[in-house]
C-alpha cells in the first residue's frame, strides 16, 4: 500500500499585498521505506509542501486544498485529536535549525522521553529514561548516561541535530520528513548526519522525504527527486535520471550552477539568468518562461499555457518542448 499520496495540493497564504500562491497542484506518492527528495530554491514551495503534510502551516489566512492520504486516511480531513496522533508517531519531522527545534529549558533526556510519553501514556518514568538513553546511544552521542541530563546549549550544532533525530525516531515513524537537516551544519558534520539518517532509515524501515536546496546532498542519499519551481513540480524522476539526463530546462540550469571540485581555475560558472518570480505576481503560463532560454523558440506558448507534468522517457517533466528536444538537446548530464 502506498504510504503517502499527495493529490493536487494547493496552499495559498493571504497577505496584505495579495494572495501568495505558495504551492499549486503538487501531486506525488511515497512508498514505504523509500527516500524522496524535494529540491528547490527559496520560494519554490518545498518547505510549505512539507509542512502541509502534518498541517503545520500556521497563520490565519492559510488555505490548503487537495488531498493528503496517509495509508488512505486524509490528513486534511482529520480533526485535531486525530492529527495529533499522527504527528510524531506515524510521521515525524526534522527541522533545519536544531537549536530552535529544541526547548532550551528542558534537558535533552526529558525532551526525548516526552516525545515517547505523549504517544504512550502511562509509561513508567524509569522506562522512559531507559528509552531516552537508548535513543541517545543509537544516534551516536558519546557518554549518553552523562549527556542525558544536559541542556541543548551544552551541545554542538551537530550533536543537537543528532538529538532532534533521536526525538523524531523515538516512536519509529513510518515517514520521516527532513527539512534541510544539514544546511546549518559544517560539511564534515553534514557528512556524519547524512550517514546517520541513512543508517537510521535502514534500521527503522521509515520512508524519508528530504527537503533541500543542495543537489549534492540529494545525489548522496535519495532514490527519487522532485524539482520544484515557483510552487509547482517541474520535474520528477529517479536520482540517476535527474542527474544524468535532466529534461526540464530549470533542472538543467540548476545542475549546471552546481560548483564542482574538479573545476578548472577561474572556470566560468553557468548560471540561470534573472531571479525567481514573486509568488504574488506569478508570470503567466510556465512560471519559468522569463528565465528560460528555450521559451522564445516555442512562439509564445510558454507565456500563455502552463505545461503539465507528463512522461518524457523515464522522467516526468513539465515543459512544452517536444519530447525529443527535452531528451536530446537537454540530456547528457552535468
Amino acid at each position, binding site marked *: 500500500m502506498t504510504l503517502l499520496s499527495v493529490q493536487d495540493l494547493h496552499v495559498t497564504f493571504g497577505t496584505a499585498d495579495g494572495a501568495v500562491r505558495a504551492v499549486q497542484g503538487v501531486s506525488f506518492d511515497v512508498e514505504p521505506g523509500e527516500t524522496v527528495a524535494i529540491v528547490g530554491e527559496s520560494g519554490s514551495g518545498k518547505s510549505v509542501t512539507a509542512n502541509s503534510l502534518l498541517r503545520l502551516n500556521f497563520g490565519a489566512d492559510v488555505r490548503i486544498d487537495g488531498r493528503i492520504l496517509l495509508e488512505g486516511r486524509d490528513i486534511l480531513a482529520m480533526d485535531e485529536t486525530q492529527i495529533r496522533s499522527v504527528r510524531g508517531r506515524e510521521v515525524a519531522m526534522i527541522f533545519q535549525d536544531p537549536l530552535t527545534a529544541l526547548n532550551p529549558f528542558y534537558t535533552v533526556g526529558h525532551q526525548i522521553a516526552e516525545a515517547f510519553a505523549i504517544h504512550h501514556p502511562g509509561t513508567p518514568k524509569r522506562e522512559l529514561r531507559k528509552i531516552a538513553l537508548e535513543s541517545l546511544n543509537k544516534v551516536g552521542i558519546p557518554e549518553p548516561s552523562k549527556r542525558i541530563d544536559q541542556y541543548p546549549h551544552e551541545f*554542538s550544532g551537530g550533536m543537537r541535530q543528532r538529538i532532534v533525530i533521536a526525538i523524531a525516531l523515538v516512536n519509529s515513524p513510518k515517514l520521516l520528513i527532513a527539512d534541510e537537516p544539514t544546511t546549518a551544519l559544517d*560539511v564534515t558534520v553534514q557528512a*556524519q548526519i547524512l550517514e546517520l539518517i541513512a543508517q537510521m532509515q535502514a534500521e527503522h524501515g521509515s520512508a524519508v522525504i528530504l527537503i533541500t536546496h543542495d543537489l549534492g546532498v540529494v545525489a548522496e542519499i535519495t532514490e527519487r527527486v522532485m524539482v520544484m519551481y515557483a510552487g509547482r513540480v517541474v520535474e520528477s524522476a529517479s536520482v540517476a535520471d535527474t542527474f544524468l539526463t535532466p529534461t526540464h530546462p530549470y533542472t538543467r540550469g540548476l545542475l549546471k550552477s552546481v560548483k564542482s571540485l574538479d573545476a578548472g*581555475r577561474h572556470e566560468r560558472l553557468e*548560471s540561470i539568468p534573472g531571479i525567481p518570480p514573486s509568488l504574488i505576481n506569478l508570470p503567466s503560463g510556465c512560471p519559468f518562461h522569463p528565465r528560460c532560454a528555450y521559451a522564445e523558440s516555442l512562439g509564445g506558448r510558454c507565456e500563455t499555457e502552463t505545461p503539465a507534468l507528463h512522461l518524457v522517457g523515464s522522467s516526468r517533466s513539465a515543459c512544452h518542448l517536444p519530447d525529443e528536444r527535452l531528451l536530446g538537446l537537454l540530456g547528457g548530464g552535468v
Partner: protein
Amino acid sequence: MSETFILEARALRKYFPTGASKMLQRPTDLVRAVDDVSFGLRRGSTLAIVGESGCGKTTLGRLLARLIEPTAGSVVLDGVDLTAASARELLELRRDIQLVFQDPYACLNPRHSIGQSIGTPIRIQKTLDKAAEKARVRELMELVGLNPEHYNRFPHEFSGGQRQRAGIARALALQPKVIIADEPVSALDVSIQSQILNLMEDLQTSLGLSYVFVAHDLSVVRHIADEVAVMYLGKIVEIGDPESVYRRTAHPYTKALLSAVPVADPRRAAGRQRIVLTGDVPSPVNPPSGCRFRTRCPKAAERCAAEEPVLSARSGDQPSGHRVACHFPE
C-alpha cells in the same frame, strides 16, 4: 616581497579574553581565534581562506581590514603597515581595502535607499560632492548589474542576490585595491551564487582587484581561487595552489574536508571513499597540545601530541609553494 604582495599578514594573532573573573579583573581564559597566521596576497589574485565554523576565518578577515585590533603581528597593505597606522591614517588607508559581508539582508540599512547605502563610503571619505556622488553611485549600480533607476528603492524591494550586488557596489565605491569577502555567496540560492561569483570574477579582471575570499565551501573556492589556505582552530594547516591542494592533498584535515563535500553525481557519490571525521572541533580555549587536529586525525601518533607541526613545504614540491603543517603528510 611587497612588490608582488598587495596584502600581507605577518604572524597575526587574535586572542579574545573569556570567562573574566570579577575579583582578579583579568580574563581567566583566552580564545585563540587566530594564532600565528602569515600569508601574502599576490596583486590581482584571489586567496581563499577555507575552514569550518570556529576555525577563525572570519576573525582573520576582520583583522586584515583592521576592524578589530590584533593581539600581535601585523598587516601590510601595499607596503604600509595597517596595524601601526593612526586613526587618521587608517581612514585614508581603508579606501584601499573594503569588505563584502555574508548576509545581504543585515549589511544594508533598511531605512536607507539602496543608492544612499552604496554612496555611504563616498560621504564618509568626502571624496566627491553630492552631484558627483550620485553619478558615481549610478555608475556603480550599472557596473554590478543593478538598474540605476532603482536608486531610490529600499533594500526590502530587492532579492538576496540583488542586495549582494549592492553590497559589492558599496565596497567598490572608493576604488579599493583589495576586497575582503566574507562568505559572500553562502546565503544565496545556488543559481544566484553563480551569478555573483561570475560578477566578482569579471570585476577582478576589469578593475584589477585582489580578493581575500573567506568561505566554508571548498567547491565554491575551486572556481575562483588562485591560492587556497585551509584553517583549523586558528591556524593555517595547508596552503598552496588549488590545483596542488585539491589534487595532491597533504593534510589529513583537508582530505576529510574534501571528501565530505557532497558530489552532485550519483555515479561518483556511490563509488567514492569518504572519510567521516569523528567528533567535533575542540574548543579554541583549550586547544589540544601539539597538533591541534590530532584528536580527530586518523593518522595521529605520539609525536603529534608532543610537538606542534610547522607549516613547511610539501616534500619535493618547493616550486609550487604548497605548504603543509603535519608530521605525517600524505
